[in-house]
C-alpha cells in the first residue's frame, strides 16, 4: 500500500487492474486505492509477471503492506510489493536481534573481515554505523597472533622475571594478548612509586639472570681436611705482626689457581658456542660490600704468585673494593671465580657462574668434623669446597678431578 500523501496511514483497495499471470511493465496501472480524499490509481515500478494478489478488494491495510507479488526477470524469488511507495525507501535489511545493517556497513564489514554479529554500536539504542566497523577493525587487528604481549608487558615481565609463556593467551587484551595489568604484582612496580633499582643491584640482576638462563650448571662438593693447612698457617704466622700474617683465604685461592692451571678445561670462557681456554689463570674474587652488593675484582696470573703475594694481592683488592677505588680493568677478564661465605657460618655455597666464565668455586666455613685418618676417628678442621660448572663446557668428571686437586693441594700446604 503506497503512501499517497504525507498524512496517509492506511488505504482501501477498491479495484485490481491486473491478475495473476499478467505481464506488467514499469508505469502500468495495477490497482485503485481509496484514500480519505479520493480514489487514486497505483502504478507499478517494476517489470515482471504478477504471481499473486495479496490483498482482497475492499480491504483496508496500513501503508507499507504488500499488495501483490511480482516476479521479475532478475529476482524471480524476491517478493515485491506494488512498489508505489516513494515515501518509504527499500527497507534496510534487518539482521540479528532486529538490528539495522545498512549496505555500506555490510560492505565495509565484508571488506575489512569484521564479524558484524560481534559488534555493538557506539550508541547502544541506535544502528551500527560504518565508524563502529572501522573501530572494530582498529581495535581487533585480524592478524593478531595468539600469545601476543604488549611491549610494556614484555619489558615488565623481563624486569620481574615473569615467564610470559605461562600467561600466553590468557591476557585481557585483544585475542588474549598479555597487558601490563595481567602480570602478577604489576601494581607494585608500575608508575613512579617503585624506587629506582640501585645500579649495582641491577647489574648483578642482569648478570645472574643471564647466567641461569643460558648456563646449564652442574654442582659438585668435596669435604677437604684442613688440619695440615691450619697447622701450617699457625706456624707461619706465629711471632709475626698482624700485617705480616697470612689468612686461610689466601691458601684457598692459591689452591684454586694451581688446580685451575692443572685442569684447564675449567679455566676460560664459553664464547659463541665453544670453550676458549684462558691465557693464564686470573682469579675473580667475590668481595661482599658493606651495605649490600658485591664486586668481583680479578687477581691476575694467580697461578704464578706465591702464597705471600697472593695474600698481598687479596688484601689489596679487598681493601680497594670496599673503598670504591678499583679500576674498571680490574673487574674484568677473570677466567674462574672464587666465592667464600664461610665466615658467615655458611657450611657450603653453590655459586652462580659469572658469564662467560665456565666455573665458580665456593668455600664454606672452617668446621671441625670427625674424619677418619689412618683408621682412627679424629676431629679435624674441615671445609666444604664446591664447584658449579658449565655443563656445555665440561662434564662432572672434570669437575671431580678439579675438586680433588684443590683438596690435595690444601692437604700439602708446603706445595702451595
Amino acid at each position, binding site marked *: 500500500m503506497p503512501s499517497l500523501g504525507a498524512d496517509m496511514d492506511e488505504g482501501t483497495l477498491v479495484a485490481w487492474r491486473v491478475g495473476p499471470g499478467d505481464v506488467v511493465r514499469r508505469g502500468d496501472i495495477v490497482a485503485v486505492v481509496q484514500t480519505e480524499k479520493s480514489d487514486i490509481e497505483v502504478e507499478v515500478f517494476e517489470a515482471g509477471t504478477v504471481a499473486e494478489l495479496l490483498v482482497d478488494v475492499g480491504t483496508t491495510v496500513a501503508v507499507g503492506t504488500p499488495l501483490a507479488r511480482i516476479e521479475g526477470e532478475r529476482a524471480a524469488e524476491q517478493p515485491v510489493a506494488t512498489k508505489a511507495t516513494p515515501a518509504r525507501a527499500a527497507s534496510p535489511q534487518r539482521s540479528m536481534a532486529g538490528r539495522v545493517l545498512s549496505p555500506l556497513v555490510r560492505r565495509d564489514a565484508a571488506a575489512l573481515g569484521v564479524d558484524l554479529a560481534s559488534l555493538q554500536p*557506539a550508541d547502544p539504542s541506535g544502528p551500527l554505523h560504518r565508524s563502529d566497523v572501522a*573501530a572494530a577493525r*582498529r581495535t581487533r587487528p585480524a592478524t593478531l597472533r595468539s600469545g601476543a604481549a*604488549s*611491549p*610494556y608487558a614484555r619489558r615488565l615481565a623481563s624486569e620481574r622475571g615473569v615467564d610470559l609463556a605461562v600467561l600466553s593467551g590468557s591476557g585481557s*587484551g585483544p585475542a588474549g594478548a598479555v*597487558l*601490563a*595489568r595481567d602480570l602478577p604484582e604489576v601494581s607494585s612496580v608500575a608508575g613512579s612509586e617503585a624506587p629506582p633499582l640501585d645500579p649495582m643491584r641491577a647489574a648483578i640482576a642482569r648478570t645472574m639472570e643471564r647466567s641461569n638462563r643460558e648456563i646449564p650448571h652442574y654442582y659438585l662438593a668435596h669435604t677437604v681436611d684442613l688440619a695440615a693447612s691450619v697447622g701450617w698457617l699457625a706456624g707461619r704466622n706465629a711471632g709475626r705482626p698482624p700485617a705480616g700474617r697470612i689468612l686461610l683465604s689466601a691458601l684457598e685461592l692459591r689452591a684454586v689457581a694451581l688446580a685451575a692451571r692443572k685442569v684447564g678445561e675449567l679455566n676460560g670462557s664459553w664464547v659463541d658456542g665453544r670453550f676458549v681456554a684462558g691465557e693464564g689463570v686470573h682469579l675473580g674474587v667475590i668481595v661482599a660490600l658493606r651495605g649490600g652488593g658485591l664486586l668481583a675484582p680479578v687477581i691476575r696470573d694467580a697461578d704464578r704468585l706465591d702464597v705471600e703475594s697472593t695474600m698481598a694481592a687479596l688484601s689489596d683488592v679487598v681493601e680497594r673494593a670496599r673503598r670504591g677505588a678499583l679500576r674498571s680493568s680490574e673487574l674484568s677478564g677473570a677466567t674462574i671465580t672464587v666465592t667464600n661465605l664461610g665466615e658467615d657460618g655458611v657450611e657450603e655455597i653453590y655459586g652462580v657462574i659469572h658469564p662467560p666464565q665456565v666455573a665458580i668455586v665456593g668455600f664454606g666455613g672452617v668446621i671441625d668434623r670427625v674424619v677418619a685418618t689412618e683408621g682412627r676417628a679424629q676431629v679435624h678442621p674441615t671445609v666444604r669446597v664446591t664447584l658449579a660448572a658449565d655443563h656445555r663446557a665440561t662434564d662432572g668428571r672434570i669437575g671431580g678431578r678439579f675438586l680433588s686437586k684443590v683438596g690435595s693441594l690444601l692437604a700439602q700446604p708446603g706445595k702451595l
Partner: protein
Amino acid sequence: MKLDYRAALRDGLRHALINEPRAFLMGEDVGAYGGCFAVSLGLLEELGENKVRDTPLSESAFVGAGIGAAMGGLRPIVEIMTVNFSLLALDQIMNNAATLLHMSGGQFAVPLVIRMTTGAGRQLAAQHSHSLEGWYAHIPGLRIVAPATVADARGMLWTALADPDPVLIFEHAALFGITDDLPEELEPVDLDRAAVRRPGTDITIVTYGSGLHRSLEAAEVLPGEGISAEVIDLRTLRPLDSDTYLESVARTHRALVVEEGWRTGGIGAEVAAQIGEEAFWDLDAPVGRLATAEVPIPYAQHLEAAALVQADDVVAAVRAVVG
C-alpha cells in the same frame, strides 16, 4: 580580566604593534574593515596607517612583500584570512620564507610572522574549513604554532615576533568565542614546550587546537569509567616537543592522538610514529589516532559534525585503547 579568544588575539596584536617599533600588520581588510574575523578592529584608527596596512587581494604579493620587509629589517605580521587561501602564497612561504636563511648561507634571516585562521565547525564548507597546519609542519625552516587557549592566543604572537625565523600562527576559527580570565599584563608564551593541560595516569591524549577542547571534554567524563586521562596541548607543531609526550607515555603506557587534520600523513601520524620509535617498550596498547574524516569538509551541519572529531569519539577511542 575576562577575555574571549578574539579579544585576546587583538590584545596580543596591539601589544606587539605598540612595543615592537619594527612591527606592522598587513593583509586583506585588516585596516578599514577591522579584519575578516574582526581581530584587528580599531587598530588602524588607534595606531595609524604606518602600523596597519590594507593590501590588495593577492596572497602571493603581500606575503612576498612581508618576506622582503622582514629581510630588510622590519618585523612584519601578515594576516591571511584562512589557511585555504594561504595556498595562493605557498610558493612564497615554502620557496622563499622557509629557505632563504639556508640558501644565503645564513646571511638573510626572515623574521616574519604569518597569522591565519584554520579549522572547521562553522558551516563554511570545503574551501574555508580545512586544517592544513600539518602540511606546513612538514617544512623545515618554519615554526608552526597553534594557540588553543585564550592565554596562548594573546601571548604567542610576542614570542613569535622574537623568533629570527618565519613563524606561522594558526588561529582556530571555531575557538573565537571561548573565554578565560587573564591577568592584565600580557604573559609571553613558551613556544618550545607543549603544555600538560590536565594531568592523568591511564592514557596520554596528545592534541592541539580544537582537539584540545574535545579531549578535555572527554577527560571530564572518563573518570566516571575509572579512566584518568592526561591531556597534552602540543602548542607548537614544528618543532614538536616530543620530550613532554614521551615522558607522559612513559608514565601512562598508552597514547591517543587527536587532531583536526586528516589522518593520512598528519601530525598525529608523526606523533604516533615518534611514540612507536621512542616509547615502544613503554606501550601497553597500540597508539590510537583520531582525525577528521578523509573528505572535504561538508557544508551541511550534521555532516560537518560527523566529519569532525567530537568528544564522544574521544571517549570511545580512549575506551578502545585502555580496553
